[in-house]
């Protein structure tokens, strides 16, 4: 990963005012995109099968669920909050999906999606309510609900697991069939990313989320409905975690008590790698999605080039640290540039 390519983007800001804002945002996504391209290219050169039809499909499928979760998490992180409970939400929704299909054979798939997202929304909004009403940091609250939701999932599921065979073939086909080379569930993820990206970049409530994360006190003074907006972020995150839970049930074989355990840090890592500032206010969901794609691709790439799998986690760790450092460097450069342009103005 190098920094060499950022200067063109920065100089553009000064010359072309019109694109300034977008360029600043893009800046944060450039390193991760380049890293992704480099990774894919190198792996492809080492093992051409990596980009075979099946290879690409697998890459996309692996990333799909993580992408959806990262996008949701990015919405929460932008408001200077965090949701650690998503793994538990995903687990409980995935299991409820399995349960629905078994309990009501022939239930329309659309209904299952809606039910999963509704359950996710409920769990997400419980997080949101606790965070906004009790005014307690989300890290603590969602650490608590991480345990509680997981406990409920365990209590509910016990040793029961539902398998792919318990679900209709058409449901499983969502993660098998492709349209123009893209698996159906990946297309769902892409649609989600686009919708959320537009929401975050180009609607008033979306921009409010950035304002809240940028300075919560100022947001209150300014009259932004902070409580409602933060609640919205948690709720949306819940909905997306719910969606991810349903898709998980479509893609993987078994859903049970431990489904989705330990996902939380991977998802936060994906968002951070994608340039979402951990203290809120900046970063985009596109970045988070690319971050998710990068992290899942690394896993596949290392396997494909037969690198000792023990290195995998260490490399992911290094990548997260690299992302943070690069983000800091970018920030310092931007600040310096602004100071210079200010000096010229005076």
């Amino acid at each position, binding site marked *: 990963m190098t920094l060499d390519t950022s200067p063109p983007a920065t100089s553009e800001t000064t010359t072309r005012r019109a694109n300034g804002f977008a360029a600043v945002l893009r800046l944060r996504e450039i390193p991760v995109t380049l890293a992704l391209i480099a990774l894919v290219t190198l792996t492809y050169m080492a093992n051409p099968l*990596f980009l075979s039809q*099946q290879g690409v499909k697998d890459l996309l499928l692996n990333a799909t669920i993580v992408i959806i979760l990262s996008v949701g998490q990015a919405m929460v992180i932008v408001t200077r909050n965090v949701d650690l409970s998503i793994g538990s939400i995903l687990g409980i929704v995935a299991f409820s999906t399995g349960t629905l299909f078994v309990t009501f054979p022939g239930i329309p798939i659309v209904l299952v999606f809606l039910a999963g997202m509704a359950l996710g929304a409920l769990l997400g909004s419980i997080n949101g309510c606790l965070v906004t009403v009790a005014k307690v940091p989300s890290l603590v609250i969602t650490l608590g609900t991480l345990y509680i939701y997981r406990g409920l999932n365990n209590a509910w599921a*016990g*040793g*029961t697991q539902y398998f792919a*065979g318990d679900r209709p073939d058409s449901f499983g086909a969502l993660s098998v069939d492709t349209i123009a080379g893209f698996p159906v569930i990946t297309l769902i993820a892409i649609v989600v990313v686009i919708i959320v990206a537009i929401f975050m970049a180009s609607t008033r409530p979306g921009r409010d989320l950035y304002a809240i994360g940028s300075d919560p006190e100022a947001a209150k003074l300014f009259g932004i409905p902070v409580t409602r907006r933060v609640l919205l972020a948690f709720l949306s995150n819940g909905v997306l975690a719910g969606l991810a839970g349903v898709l998980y049930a479509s*893609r993987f074989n078994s859903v049970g008590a431990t489904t989705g355990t330990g996902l939380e840090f991977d998802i936060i890592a994906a968002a951070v790698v994608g340039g979402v500032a951990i203290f809120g206010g900046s970063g985009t969901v596109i970045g988070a999605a690319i971050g998710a794609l990068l992290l899942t691709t690394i896993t*596949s790439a290392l*396997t494909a080039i037969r690198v000792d799998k023990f290195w995998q986690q260490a490399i992911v760790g290094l990548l997260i640290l690299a992302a943070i450092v690069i983000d800091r460097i970018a920030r310092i450069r931007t600040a310096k540039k602004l100071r210079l342009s200010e000096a010229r103005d005076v």
Partner: protein
Amino acid sequence: MEFIRYTKTRRTRRLLAFAAAAASVALVASGCASGGDAGTGGGAEGDLSITFIPKQLNNPYTDVVLGGGEDGATAAGFAATEVVGPLEASASSQVSFINAETQAGTSVIVIAANDPDAVGPALEEARAAGAKIVAFDSDTNPKYRDVFISQVIAKDVALIQIELLAEQIGGSGEIAILSATANATNQNEWIKFIEEELASNPEYAEISLVAKVYGDDDDTKSFQEAQGLLQAYPSLKGIISPTTVGIAATARYLSTSNYKGTVALTGLGLPNEMRPFVKDGTVTAFALWDPAQLGYVAAFAGKALADGTITGTEGDTFDAGDLGEREVGADGIVIVGPPTTFNADNIDDYDF
């Protein structure tokens, strides 16, 4: 065979767990519940109690084993039967459960060890307090237990798997193994025998084992390992997965990819999990012993140990209820029975 009862117990236990969870959100309630429960768990003088500690609760295979275990315990005449264990299979998490059982004065502890050594000191303490230790499913270091109830003769399991696969891939080509965790005692033993057989049996001269990967008995991880295998080894002809989680995850991947039908898969699986994959042609045949028997025999072995009928030395024999008499072999190992092969013709006859 008693597969039917298992389903019932599973549901009952689930209900119990749910009720307990609901009741205990209030801390006091949980304390009360534990107080009430403990009375039965402790056991009166002379009554024998048995506790099963599986690798992990809430795992379908484990549930079948435990179902058999509970039936066996009742049949063998234990006054109290308990199942405790961690929710995640980690090496050290079983220790505190063993400790609690030691304190409860449980007569027989039946354990499937996540790590052969990590549970050692705790088991020694339990023995010092008078408990008999029966290892089942996955052995501890032999010095820490009285007997080990093995599914089958390890070599038989290895041979049947390689035989099935060799048949499916036509006797030649690259194969790989997708195992559970790398230090699971039983897995490694089977893999060792598979490797030896490949090296020594001229029938398998054309077959080469190119990779061993580990899915940690985690569905997602096994799934991705399977996927990685096929990408890294394009000419792979077949996969052996000697673990129920691994084979199901791999089957799921194969059935959803275009490797379906071109890459063979076999190993050890639960018929209920594997049924759709056998029916859709992803898997031709796989093997497994009857897991319920494993628990069943373990309970009877525990009873015999507690009664003093056997001590776990080679040549000891004990009555195992419906399954007749069993003999303790070398190293205190008791073999349950031969593995069964499941295929499209017979899979519907089984329900576990």
